[in-house]
């Protein structure tokens, strides 16, 4: 394996005496889709939130360990947190369009980092909306509030919004769980395309989805990583008993 995009070392996280993540060591390969899976409440979302430091918002959470992106330890750094977060686009379980029109949703990330030229913004917005196959559907109503879009369109809009700040990594937390099958398929197809230029980390508890798109799998249970590895090995020849029974659907 090449140098991983993200290396997590000895990551522990506790919340009010309850330990949520226990000594996590994970490598996430560059330009591949890494799927983090496991039953509900196993800490997969929390692990993802550590990666872009959204855990900072929760003042009661205690985090220790290292998360390396390249050579930089983003957990223990005095660097500007906004710079770190900009390296990662975030796609949440449900789309949360910002309270503004469609155009401004995509332009938001560019605007707040100081790119305000109208021509530039128009070009970039069109580019990213095309990239998520949304342009044709919204080009005549860019000034409408984003809330009027269907939920599937909103999720693609959120993806475009995340891509617009030019991240290296896409973090997706069950990005299709609120979507209909067709919209889900559009997102999955998009991910398969995007992985040539982005490293994608996706949390899911849908086994079939993981089988469809994963290149690399991290399996978690009760705050621990049970098994991780390339997808074909993981699904064809799991090493741990717990993984085997999970894959058989013995617990969920």
């Amino acid at each position, binding site marked *: 394996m090449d140098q991983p995009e993200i290396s997590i070392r000895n990551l522990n996280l506790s919340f009010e005496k309850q330990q949520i993540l226990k000594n996590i060591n994970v490598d996430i390969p560059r330009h591949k889709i890494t799927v983090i899976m496991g039953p509900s409440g196993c800490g997969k979302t929390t692990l993802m939130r550590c990666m*872009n430091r*959204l855990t900072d*918002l929760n*003042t*009661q959470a205690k985090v220790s360990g290292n998360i390396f992106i390249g050579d930089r330890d983003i957990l223990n750094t005095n660097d500007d947190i*906004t*710079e770190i*977060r*900009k390296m*990662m*686009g*975030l796609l*949440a379980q*449900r789309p*949360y369009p*910002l*309270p*503004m029109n469609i155009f401004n949703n995509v332009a*938001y*990330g560019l605007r*707040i*980092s100081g790119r305000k030229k109208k021509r530039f913004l128009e070009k970039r917005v069109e580019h990213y909306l095309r990239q998520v196959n949304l342009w044709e559907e919204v080009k005549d109503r860019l000034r409408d*509030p984003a*809330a009027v879009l269907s939920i599937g369109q909103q999720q693609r809009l*959120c993806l475009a*919004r*995340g891509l*617009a*700040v030019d991240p290296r990594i896409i*973090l997706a937390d069950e990005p299709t769980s609120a979507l209909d099958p067709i919209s889900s398929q559009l997102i999955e197809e998009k991910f398969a395309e995007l992985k040539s230029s982005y490293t994608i980390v996706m949390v899911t508890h849908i086994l079939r989805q993981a089988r469809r798109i994963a290149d690399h799998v991290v399996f978690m249970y009760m705050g621990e990583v049970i098994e991780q590895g390339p997808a074909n090995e993981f699904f064809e020849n799991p090493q741990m008993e717990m993984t085997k029974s999970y894959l058989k659907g013995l617990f969920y």
Partner: protein
Amino acid sequence: MRFRLFDISRKLRNSIHTSWMIASLSIVLLIPLVLTAGLVIKSLPLLEQQPLLTLLFSSNWKPLSGEFGFYPFIVSSVWVTILALLFSIPICLLTSIHLTQYAKKWVLKIMQPVIDILAGIPSVIYGVWGILVIIPFISDHVAPFLGKSSSGYSILAGSIVLSIMVIPFVLNILIELFNNIPVELSEASLSLGATRWQTIKFVVLKKGLPGIISSFGLGMSRAFGETIAVLMVVGNVAKVPTGILQPGYPLPALIANNYGEMMSIPQYDAALMLSAFILFVVVLFFNAGSRLLIIRSGKHN
């Protein structure tokens, strides 16, 4: 057979209880209607004699000669209310943003009862506090500083006391409002590289704007109707105030000071009823407008 009997009594009991509920519901529903009708009927004698516009915009308040101009009272009410809101808006906004966006959880846990205590203090106590603290402060410091003289009993004193009374009321609405804005929305903004402040400015405040406006609308109707505390510090002189250091005479104070006295003067009763009706309509207007705004914005998002 026994079973059926039991069944009937059960149904009967059910309908009896239901009718109690409907009865109390209709009482609640009827009160505002009866109140409005009462106010209108009572103020009709005056309205039949003089046109409404003259009453509203005349500055002459001489009950003995039958002149009832409400203008000084309306102007006083508007001044006191608007000033009170100007004082309380920044405090409420900044406090609620800090408590919901920046502060640790335990700070909010401590502040919540403090706000409730502020809200629960009887208004007469605020009035006494105004007389003991605000009035001397205005007459000894504020007025000389502005190069004027004032007894302290003034529009300014009324609005300061009022603003403090409005704060807990508006603050509670704002805190709930900001807490109801999904965290995921802020997280989306942060993950795009926005700072905390950019997120608040462009996302949280924007999302909450209709609610913020309507919370101030509700605060406004509250302030407009507040009586005792304002009455105690505002001076109660029936003249159009020309500055904030001058005494004023808001509508609620007019009613509270005069109803039941000098009732032998013709039309006096009707005049006070009309001022009550004006007060009622204004408060209703702000209340309904604010609620409408909340409902509409809720649907839109």
